[in-house]
């Protein structure tokens, strides 16, 4: 069974690129374009990994992360933050809330992000 990755990101261009990339790598990707849908899909589909943007419509990334980590159904799903917010305080806050890692979009190539995803799956 292929691993399921939930991508919570409001940029549809990124949804498309990651969708194609992850599919080619043998993963199944589910898209959520806002925080609320993301939370619902996390609970319903029980993905193996969540990629989470921080600036999102309806519920921002920190709220989503907090709810994911306090819900017994979703608290063990690893979460990778994928954002353009570079502030060091945000990094600390996200890791404290239970994010596995914090990636600033502008600093990584697709190939590097793919490596990080594979590393989570071990």
């Amino acid at each position, binding site marked *: 069974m292929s691993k399921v990755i939930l991508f919570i990101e409001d*940029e549809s*261009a*990124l949804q498309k*690129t990651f969708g*194609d*990339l992850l599919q*080619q790598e043998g993963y199944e990707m589910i898209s959520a374009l806002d925080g609320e849908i993301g939370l619902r899909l996390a609970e319903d589909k029980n993905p193996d990994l969540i990629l989470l943007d921080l600036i999102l419509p309806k519920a921002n990334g920190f709220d989503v992360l907090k709810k994911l980590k306090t819900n017994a159904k979703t608290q063990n799903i690893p979460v990778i933050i994928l954002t*353009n917010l*570079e*502030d*060091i*305080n945000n990094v600390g806050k996200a890791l404290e809330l239970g994010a596995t890692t914090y990636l600033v*979009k*502008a600093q990584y*190539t*697709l*190939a590097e992000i793919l490596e990080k995803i594979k590393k989570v799956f071990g």
Partner: protein
Amino acid sequence: MVLPETKEQFNLSRQCKRYGLSLWQCPQFLFLFMGIIIICSILITYFIGRNYLGDPELVALVVLFTTAILFIVATIIVQSFERLAEISRMKSEFVSVVSHQLRSPLSNLRWAIEFLMSGRADAITEKQLEYFKILMENSDRMRELVADLLNVSRLEQGIMPFKKEEVSLAEIVGQVVKEADIFAKASNVVIDFEDENSLPRISTDPVQLKLAVSNLLDNAIRYTKREGRVKINLAEKGKILFCEVSDSGVGIPKDDQKYIFQKFFRSSNILKQQTEGSGLGLYIAKSIIEKLGGKINFKSQEGVGSTFWLTLPIG
């Protein structure tokens, strides 16, 4: 050279126009106006005092009146300065917001190009690859420019995060050299750096220091045309650590040297050669090093090369 500059300083209306302020809001003009009032009021008070000595109340009244006028003018001057400061703050904030907004579409663009270049979408021809490389290089340039603009705006707003820890300067320089390796090889430049293990560790911000050193090294490589050598020396001199980056590059023309740390300044000889660059690297490096309690300076000769050095306090 001095005369036109001095003339420019006295051309108040042009200076005020540059700030986008009317004469009655412009600090330079108001200062001059206040100066003239002070001189006139002293003279008038003197004459009145001399001619109407028998009526000290009148003298007091004139002094009071002129003081009130001066007070009003001074208030307007302060307000004008506040307005200028506000404009400057808004400008920095604007740059920051715009840069942040530019980052998302840039990431989308870069990753889409990377996806296409990797041949994952479909097989690509040599010719297509050439053009993809142009797209990639230019989106990388935009990314670097946006990063520079964000750094400048953070430094100017005073919100650049500085977090000090005990670090080794040699280790940081070593990392910068390693990261610049591909760029140096592509530019036919050899980096000459010997790790000085004997230097004491210092308390500084490693992330910011790395950014400053990497800007110096990046310039040294970028402005060395044809084959060349960049030498990095580290030393301890009394209570300071010293890091020197010298290149055999194009150098900085004498007339341009005094402007070299200014924002967006690019010297005339490199503009002719169309070398890429934002003109922000040295400004950022200088701001960072000064925030870290150090100094930065250089010597350069056009056609021979440049040597930039920075100092950092120990302890």
